[in-house]
């Protein structure tokens, strides 16, 4: 496929992106960004050093600068600290635009309502930690916005970077979107801010029965989702399309891609707290079993120590793409031959040295932050879990080939059964012949052991034949389904679908939100007061306060019945242990007596019935 054909294919299926009202940054040409950046290096134990000023950095020279100095972290720097005057201008501009935006964009305050106390505490600590850990400076978003508007004024248009490759029978169209800045945290109360942002979607095409390429699957990169959960069938109703163009709902500020409009709750779990989360989940599962409560599926499990963030993908803002508010510029084709794609492994924006890496800029489309090649780049088929899936046109052939293999295998198994059965019968004849002779007792025992062993082997073979028969029946039905033109199951591969959050499960939403906002502070203040006044029965007061808060929390979250039952059961267990400790031998004796009388009663009842009979 030549470049012209690749561009035609990219344009034929190019996506439509629906942004949220209030979004400030849109996909742009990465090369224009490079030209506006300076290149820096941060070596361990040394202050950052500028390798090349803005005037010298170009897409062609970028890789060369890096090749000269390999140690340390390379990064591009777009924003410079704003002067007081620039800050004032930007603030005025934002206020002018903000008055208009605020009328339509309203942040949902329900994120803390959806998680428990521990998560709220972790959320508070996470926000406090921003004061001490590496983060993008406060004026960076304003500076990036100013710089972005300057670039737009120079005539830059909305651009995507397209890559076409063939892998395992699939033709993959990758659409890479470069955003100058991710302002999810500073503008939309999200998890992080960082300079530069790369997002991507892939469309998977395969030749149909006429040999013409048709789209079969599409995958949107979205936060921590991976594999099968990323992709949807082209005919899946969840994939909104305008003609042949799939629609993306971009998260406000984060630019993550979603199939449906909505507000997505993203729970970020800190790796350091993972062991606590695991133990807590196991305790919760055991407790649910004790209380005979149904276990929720993994995707509905309430986060234990996760920090909740809302990603607003409302789709009520600018629409870029065919039929939208603004069109795409012709695609910029990228692959390994492009110098800045292959040669620059560094970060595309400020390196903040954030230990969680959330505030560090990402690397380019080909690389992870640590310089390794992204799986989405070197194995886009496996990245979306498509490596095990055959294109639709090849499915029938694959089914038939699989069926023939199974038939051959079954024939082989039957032959083995026949042979082993004949051998087994021979052994049984031998055993029958020598059984009455005492001097052959040892040989008889050996033959008996062999008979048992071979009989077991034949039973295993028969079981395998039965399983193969069942598999063949299923394959026959699947083949008939395909021959009748039936579609493959569209969503069975999805284990954890990201669905928009609904707030209607929370009772008295405003009260719940207010409670979620103040509860942690009130609880901590109550503890401090308790320790300050130090009452006589301190542990009991601690339990009482915790119980009170738990009941209030349960009331606003609609779990009062469950919590009351659990609380009472926990106290009953504690009291039962006390009684067991005090009256251990009495309890043992009582249980033995109860067992004895039950056996007596049961036996007498049986005896009475048998006499009547």
């Amino acid at each position, binding site marked *: 496929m030549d470049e012209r054909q690749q561009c035609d294919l990219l344009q034929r299926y190019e996506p439509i992106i629906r942004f949220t009202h209030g979004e400030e940054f849109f996909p742009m040409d990465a090369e224009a960004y490079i030209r506006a950046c300076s290149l820096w290096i941060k070596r361990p134990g040394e202050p950052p050093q500028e390798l090349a000023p803005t005037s010298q950095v170009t897409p062609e020279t970028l890789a060369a600068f890096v090749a000269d100095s390999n140690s340390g972290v390379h990064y591009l720097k777009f924003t410079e600290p704003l002067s007081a005057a620039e800050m004032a201008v930007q603030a005025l501009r934002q206020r002018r635009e903000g008055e208009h935006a605020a009328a339509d964009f309203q942040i949902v305050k329900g994120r803390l309502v959806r998680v428990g106390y521990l998560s709220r505490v972790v959320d508070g600590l996470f926000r406090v930690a921003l004061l001490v850990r590496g983060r993008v400076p406060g004026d960076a978003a304003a500076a990036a916005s100013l710089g972005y508007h300057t670039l737009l004024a120079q005539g830059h248009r909305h651009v995507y970077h397209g890559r076409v490759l063939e892998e395992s029978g699939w033709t993959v169209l990758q659409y890479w979107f470069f955003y100058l800045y991710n302002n999810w945290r500073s503008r939309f109360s999200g998890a992080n801010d960082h300079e530069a942002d790369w997002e991507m979607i892939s469309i998977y095409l395969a030749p149909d029965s006429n040999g013409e390429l048709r789209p079969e699957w599409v995958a949107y990169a979205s936060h921590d989702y991976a594999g099968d959960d990323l992709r949807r069938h082209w005919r899946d109703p969840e994939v909104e399309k305008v003609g042949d163009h799939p629609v993306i709902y971009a998260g406000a500020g984060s630019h993550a891609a979603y199939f449906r409009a909505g507000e997505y709750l993203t729970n970020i779990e800190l790796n350091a707290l993972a062991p606590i989360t695991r133990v807590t989940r196991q305790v919760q599962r055991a407790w649910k079993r004790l209380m005979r409560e149904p276990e929720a599926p993994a995707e509905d499990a309430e986060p234990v120590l996760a920090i909740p963030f809302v990603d607003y993908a409302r789709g009520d803002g600018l629409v870029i793409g065919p039929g939208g508010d603004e069109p795409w510029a012709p695609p910029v084709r990228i692959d390994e031959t492009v110098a800045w794609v292959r040669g620059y492994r560094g970060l595309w924006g400020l390196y903040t040295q954030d230990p969680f890496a959330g505030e560090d800029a990402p690397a380019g489309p080909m690389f992870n932050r640590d310089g390794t090649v992204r799986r989405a780049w070197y194995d886009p088929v496996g990245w979306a879990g498509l490596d095990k899936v055959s294109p639709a046109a090849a499915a029938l052939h694959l089914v038939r080939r699989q069926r023939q293999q199974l038939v051959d295998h079954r024939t082989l198994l039957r032959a083995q059964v026949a042979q082993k059965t004949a051998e087994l019968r021979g052994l049984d004849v031998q055993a029958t012949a020598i059984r009455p002779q005492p001097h052959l007792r040892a040989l008889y025992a050996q033959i008996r052991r062999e008979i048992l062993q071979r009989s077991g082997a034949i039973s295993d073979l028969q079981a395998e034949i039965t399983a193969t028969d069942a598999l063949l029946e299923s394959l026959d039905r699947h083949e008939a389904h395909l021959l009748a033109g039936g579609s493959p199951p569209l969503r069975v591969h999805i284990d954890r679908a990201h669905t928009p959050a609904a707030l209607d499960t929370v009772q008295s939403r405003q009260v719940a939100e207010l409670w979620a906002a103040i509860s942690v502070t009130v609880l901590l203040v109550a503890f401090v007061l308790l320790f300050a006044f130090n009452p006589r029965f301190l542990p009991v007061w601690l339990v*009482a306060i915790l119980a009170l808060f738990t009941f209030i929390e349960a009331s606003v979250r609609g779990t009062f019945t469950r919590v009351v*039952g659990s609380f009472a059961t926990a106290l009953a267990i504690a009291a039962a242990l006390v009684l067991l400790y005090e009256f251990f031998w009495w309890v043992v004796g009582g249980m033995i007596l109860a067992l004895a009388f039950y056996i007596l009663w049961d036996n007498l009842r049986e005896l009475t019935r048998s006499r009547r009979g």
Partner: protein
Amino acid sequence: MNETPTPQQVPLPGFIRRSNHQYRWSLWITVSVLLLQAMVFAGTAAFLLATIDWEPASVFEEPPVAVLVQMQQALALLPFVALVLVCIIVCLVRPRAGWHLGLLTESLILLVALQLYVYDRDHVLSERSLLFVYMLGAILIIIFMNSPEGRLLLDPPPHAHETDAHPHG
């Protein structure tokens, strides 16, 4: 298409009526055990008050410690008697609310009992043997109220027409 109804779809004969006995049994068992618990508390309090030896108290200007302890033990039970009686009334009027209040009351009884078990080493507020009886009673009530039968009170009470009409008809 097979039009023959499944056994579950066949209407019941007129003389068979759906019963709400199970719900009523659960309600009355709950009320009964709570009543029994209130009677135990009240009876114990009355016994303690009745068996106080008032003579030394009238002889001395200040009542002796033994009299005070016995009075404290008796009076400490009275709030629980009142609370359990409230639970019984709520159970009869609003069974669902009664179930919640009942469990909260039993939790409170256990919480106080455990606290006394740990701290009241001098048996000022409670007699140890009686305390264990209270704990055992509360444990048994919690077990019943958390059982499938006890949890029936969380469901809306069956209406009269459901009990008498043909449910499958």
